[in-house]
């Protein structure tokens, strides 16, 4: 056995060498990879916040556009990371017109920008812009992760502007489940953090996320790649993911303070005690149809944090779908890719036939035809 051990060890080391050499040759040439593969048009800009428009590419066109609101923590191009891994492209092919918010990178000058500024300011202005541009009194909204929480809050404050709400991996009950972020949050001192640092660096946030699974995310992920280093396609895909993971904008200080203190630590949204700009956020005012999707294996936003949405809101038409994937798997796993876009497109088209074409007039017909259901998995 000992002789064999020596042989095997030498072979293993030799194998690593060969693969790394190949990888060295492949990777040193790559200065950057494309981020966001679907061409969009910049249609609106306010400070650092931009809005991109994507025209539908076929199928039955949904008369109501969909506004995609991503988290502040990472960048929205995860939904459009590769040709064959693009939720945007799949939605466009199914007739969904997209508007996508790009929150940009907060600079030091943004440290006093609050959650109110983000939701009641930037987001509300964007919604009004899309309503004007599309001629729809109400628009559809898709909120993802932290952007999902923002969308829920927005829909509770401005229900008259939202036709249908779709949320993905969105935390609403921050004290449910046993996620590490939830365990750690009470021990953070957001007051001191923001007072001292100002904007919270993206690197710091990323470090926290890596520490949720340090051995997998810092070691095994890369060791596992060594075997595929001679496959340029696999390397490109890996680099795209790496770029996205480490492309973390800083968090505007005051927004971080309120988000951590009042949501993570005090769970005010689920308790019905959350206020924004002096206005109470009453989730019962969310009466539009809601599609709630989450990952059963999500370690960042455990399913228990997303699931209670159906019980907290006033809508009678709630569809809840759990996918057997993790947080990132929601965007890139083959199962989610195969099922999610058709599901979202179908769900939206079924519920978007009433607003168009009247501009700035609420169309009252057809509403009764919308099937009322409150489904939970």
């Amino acid at each position, binding site marked *: *056995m*000992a*002789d*064999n*051990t*020596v042989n*095997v*060890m*030498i*072979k*293993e*080391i*030799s194998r*690593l*060498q*060969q693969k*790394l*050499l190949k*990888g*060295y040759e492949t*990777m*040193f*040439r*790559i*200065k*950057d*990879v494309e981020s966001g593969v679907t061409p969009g048009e910049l249609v609106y800009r306010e*400070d650092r916040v931009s809005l991109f428009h994507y025209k539908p590419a076929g199928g039955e066109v949904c008369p109501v556009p969909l506004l995609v609101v991503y988290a502040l923590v990472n960048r929205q191009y995860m939904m459009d990371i590769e040709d064959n891994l693009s939720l945007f492209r799949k939605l466009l092919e199914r007739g969904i017109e997209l508007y996508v918010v790009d929150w940009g990178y907060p600079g030091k*000058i943004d*440290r*006093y920008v609050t959650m109110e500024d983000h939701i009641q*300011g930037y987001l509300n202005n964007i919604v009004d812009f899309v309503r004007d541009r599309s001629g729809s009194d109400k628009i559809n909204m898709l909120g993802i992760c932290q952007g999902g929480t923002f969308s829920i809050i927005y829909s509770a404050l401005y229900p008259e502007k939202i036709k249908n709400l779709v949320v993905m991996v969105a935390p609403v009950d921050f004290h449910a489940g*046993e996620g*590490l972020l939830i*365990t*750690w949050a009470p*021990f953070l*001192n957001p007051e*001191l*953090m923001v007072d*001292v*640092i*100002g904007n919270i660096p993206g690197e710091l946030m990323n470090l926290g996320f890596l520490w949720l*699974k*340090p*051995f*997998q995310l*810092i*070691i*095994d*992920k*890369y*060791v596992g*790649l*060594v075997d595929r*280093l001679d496959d340029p396609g696999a390397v490109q895909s*890996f*680099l795209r993911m*790496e*770029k996205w993971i480490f492309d973390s904008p800083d968090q505007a200080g005051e927004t971080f303070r309120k988000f951590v203190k009042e949501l993570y630590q005090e769970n005010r949204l689920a308790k019905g005690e959350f206020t924004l700009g002096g206005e109470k956020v009453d989730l019962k005012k969310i009466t539009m149809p809601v599609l709630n999707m989450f990952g059963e294996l999500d370690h960042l936003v455990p399913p228990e944090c997303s699931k209670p949405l159906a019980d907290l809101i006033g809508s009678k038409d709630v569809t809840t779908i759990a996918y057997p994937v993790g947080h990132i798997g929601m965007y890139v796993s083959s199962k989610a890719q195969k099922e999610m876009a058709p599901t979202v497109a179908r769900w939206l088209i079924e519920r978007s036939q009433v607003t168009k074409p009247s501009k700035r007039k609420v169309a009252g017909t057809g509403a009764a035809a919308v099937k009322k259901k409150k489904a939970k998995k």
Partner: protein
Amino acid sequence: MKEKEDPTTGLMSQWATMHENFWKEWLALGERFWANIPALQTDKTLSGFSPPDITKMYFDWWEKWGKAMYPQALTDMPMFKPFTMEGMQRWGEWPWFKALGDLGIWYREMLEKFEEEARGEMQEGLGVTVFNRINRAVKIYMEVLDFWIRIMGLLQDVSAGKPASAEETKKIYEEWMKNYRSVMESLWGQIPSSDVRSTMKAFTGTSLAASDFAWSFAEPVISNLSQLPGIFQRMIKGEKGVTAELGGLFIKNYEDTMGRALLAPSLGYFREFNERINKAVYGYVQFNNAKTAFFSMLYRSGLQAAERVLQRFAEFKIDELTPETIRELYRIWWNVNEETYHEVFRTEEFRDISQQLVERGLLLRKWCDELAHHMLKFTSIPSKQDMDEIYKAIYDLRKDVRALRKAVTDLRV
């Protein structure tokens, strides 16, 4: 009678083959680089790139490897024992085995060469950045392999299902823990020595007193504040003699400036300034204490994980070691560690200690900012506090402009 086969022959030929293959790869890689030079020159994304001196790199590590390994290995070769059970019990002592174990060291050196070259020759880019991350992970993987090689001989009896004696078990355990520590160092960095910890504690006491006299003692060191981070870094790395250096610096500066240090606070004018420095030093010491506690906990948890991994390895029956079994052992290693750390991350102790670390770090920065603000008051350079005030003013102005613009729009409508 058949001549007894030299057990080293197989190994030598394997080494030779491996090096030959490796050498060919390097040459081929070099040729490809050179062949592509016209393309490299015309390709704007690669402008400024020059291929690393592969031949030199190869000979550099070959020389290091040769110097480190071969003299001893060659000297001991006649005594090299055949692979018998008796020999296996002493496996860890064999020069060749030691040499093989040191493959990890050689390999890490090679990877460091890669990184060095990448840093020196390549332009910044995503590919190079990610490749360096891969290198770091592979280094840890190599640590684990290296560790496994070293421990394998000790585990023979256990893995064969034979109960080990109490003495053997103790030896295995001790060896395991000792080696695991080096893996931990690759992961988390070196823990500060007890010497450093006691110095920190003493220093904290000095700062805590915060009386004029205590302060006058600390102030001279602060006058050489720029040297302190370097000294502390070296202390944390466990470098011997640095504590004495710190003490020397402390005393020298104290003597050089004692009069001023004693007199300045009593003048009153410098009191605020001194208090701020005092706070910053206190914060620095407190932060380092918190850091020590934090990394101690990580190490302790690593050793807990080591015990679990040992148990799992002992249960892992190997009839024949194959590349698959190596990877399975590695998989067990990282999974058990992940589970262990996950449990630790949930404990109240972890939350308390990490909370301390973050808060101490923040307070240090806060007090340093306050100190800087006080010092910059005498210059025209804005401090962080000044800039924050400007940001706030701009933020408020933007809000006013937005409100006015909205009012104008509403009036027009």
